[in-house]
């Protein structure tokens, strides 16, 4: 009998301990700075970096996070985050020009594609894929950063984005990979392939023989035009102008980022608090349900199978305590719902702020791209005529 009573109280104790036990998330408080390459590469060996607009990752949102994730904010972040990455890479001084690409028409030495896997103010997770102009993928890596409230301290925010560390880590990995794997002759090859791809875009007849593409889609240099080839020099003039077009689009993105920063940071800070509360309440509710159910089941077994009054009474107490824990689990769930609603409201408010800005950004970029493409078409025709004139077929 004493053994059975011990079991019941033991079960209750475990249930209480389980329900009180809290999960802890490890938060990063260390700041990883951007590493600057100690080896000063000459300018002709600096690789230019293009960053595509990120995939907002809407298809990859987990079912459990659907009610706290706002699609429109993700779309806005898909333009905001790569711009911050481009600024980080540019500041590192390890690369040539670093630009957010308005489309995939302009070949760059290195192209970075990203997908947003998580972004809620407390955590940011990105999947980054890096490849070069020859078509070879360098690597794909996932980055996950959970920050502390300190990152939203006004003194910190003036200096850096709360998730600046994630951009620094991406920049440092990119540098490390280049240093470990890409030798100088390969850098020259990548840069030449980029130039030849651009040349092919404007004068396919004249430059098609210089590149071959294998079954895997990788480009290899088959030959090189003379460095003083007049047609190549004209292509270089046009490429300078293509960079100017891309620079203009950077100015659009800079405006967009500046406009978005304050409301977005404010949303992230509030979202941080709500997300932390929500996670703790959900975990607490889950623990209470588990512990309560265990106590009820144990108590019921004791109450029905108990051989005497004491064990039956102990069982009944266990059932009562378990029922209380289950009820408190429902209470925690109701509290969590309030935070979900708060997150939805916050998201809606930011969506109203940023969605028109995204539309404006896209409209301007598309309009400018269209205008520029019209000019490019005329240049392509002129270059085709020039090539024909050189061959004597015009």
């Amino acid at each position, binding site marked *: 009998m004493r053994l059975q009573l011990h079991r019941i109280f033991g079960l209750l104790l475990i249930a209480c301990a389980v329900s009180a036990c809290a999960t802890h998330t490890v938060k990063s408080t260390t700041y990883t700075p951007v590493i600057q390459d100690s080896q000063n590469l000459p300018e002709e060996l600096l690789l230019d970096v293009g960053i595509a607009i990120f995939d907002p990752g809407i298809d990859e949102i987990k079912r459990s996070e659907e009610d706290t994730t706002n699609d429109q904010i993700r779309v806005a972040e898909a333009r905001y985050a790569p711009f911050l990455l*481009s*600024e980080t890479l*540019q*500041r590192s001084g390890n690369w*040539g*020009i670093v630009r957010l690409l308005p489309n995939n028409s302009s070949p760059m030495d290195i192209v970075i594609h990203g997908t947003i896997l998580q972004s809620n103010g407390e955590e940011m997770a990105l999947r980054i894929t890096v490849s070069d102009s020859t078509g070879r993928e360098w690597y794909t890596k996932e980055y996950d950063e959970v920050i502390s409230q300190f990152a939203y301290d006004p003194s910190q925010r003036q200096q850096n984005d709360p998730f600046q560390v994630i951009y620094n880590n991406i920049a440092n990995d990119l540098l490390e990979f280049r240093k470990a794997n890409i030798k100088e002759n390969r850098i020259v090859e990548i840069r030449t392939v980029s130039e030849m791809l651009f040349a092919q875009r404007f004068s396919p007849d004249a430059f098609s023989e210089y590149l071959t593409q294998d079954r895997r889609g990788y480009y290899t240099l088959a030959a090189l035009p003379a460095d003083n080839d007049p047609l190549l020099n*004209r292509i270089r*003039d046009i490429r*300078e*102008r293509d*960079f*100017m*077009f891309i*620079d*203009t689009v*950077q*100015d*659009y993105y*800079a*405006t967009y980022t*500046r*406009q978005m920063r*304050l*409301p977005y940071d*404010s949303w992230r800070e509030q979202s941080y608090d709500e997300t932390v509360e929500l996670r703790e309440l959900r975990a607490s509710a889950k623990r209470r349900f588990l512990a309560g159910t265990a106590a009820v089941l144990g108590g019921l077994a004791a109450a029905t199978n108990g051989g005497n009054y004491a064990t039956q009474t102990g069982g009944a107490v266990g059932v009562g305590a378990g029922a209380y824990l289950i009820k408190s689990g429902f209470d925690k769930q109701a509290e969590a719902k309030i935070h979900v609603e708060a997150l939805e409201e916050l998201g809606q408010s930011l969506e*109203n*702020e940023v*969605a*028109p*800005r995204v*539309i*404006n950004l896209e*409209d*301007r970029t598309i*309009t*400018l791209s269209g*205008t*520029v493409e*019209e*000019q490019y078409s*005329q*240049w392509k025709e*002129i*270059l085709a*005529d*020039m090539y024909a*004139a*050189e061959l*004597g077929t*015009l």
Partner: protein
Amino acid sequence: MTSAERTAVLDAELRRGYETFDGFILGERERAQAESNAAGSVSIGGDSGAGGGSDSPNQPQTLPQAGGTSQVAVASLPSASAPPSETFPPPEDIPSGRDDDVVARQLREAAMSEPDPELREALWEEYRKYTGISDSK
């Protein structure tokens, strides 16, 4: 017409296209940078935010027809490797930079990005002298 003559004609056509394009892009960049600076000085409360989408000042200019009569000099253009930084609007007497040649353009860009007001004014003075604005006054 010989092949060389034909190439020369096409080259001239290409250069005219560059001039038109350069003037267009520089004008658009100047406008975009001014907007970016303005956005940088706007606080949450000061900017109504929503609805900023389709105001006409935000619409890009249209590129004039190729072969137009733009007077912008042909120049190798900066690829602007630095990230967009704060710029300062030109003084009132400074005209739009559409007719600037490469030197004037560099003076203009240096002046617009110079945070020190004295140095900035000195650069604008150089710009005035170079472009002949001060002579015409």
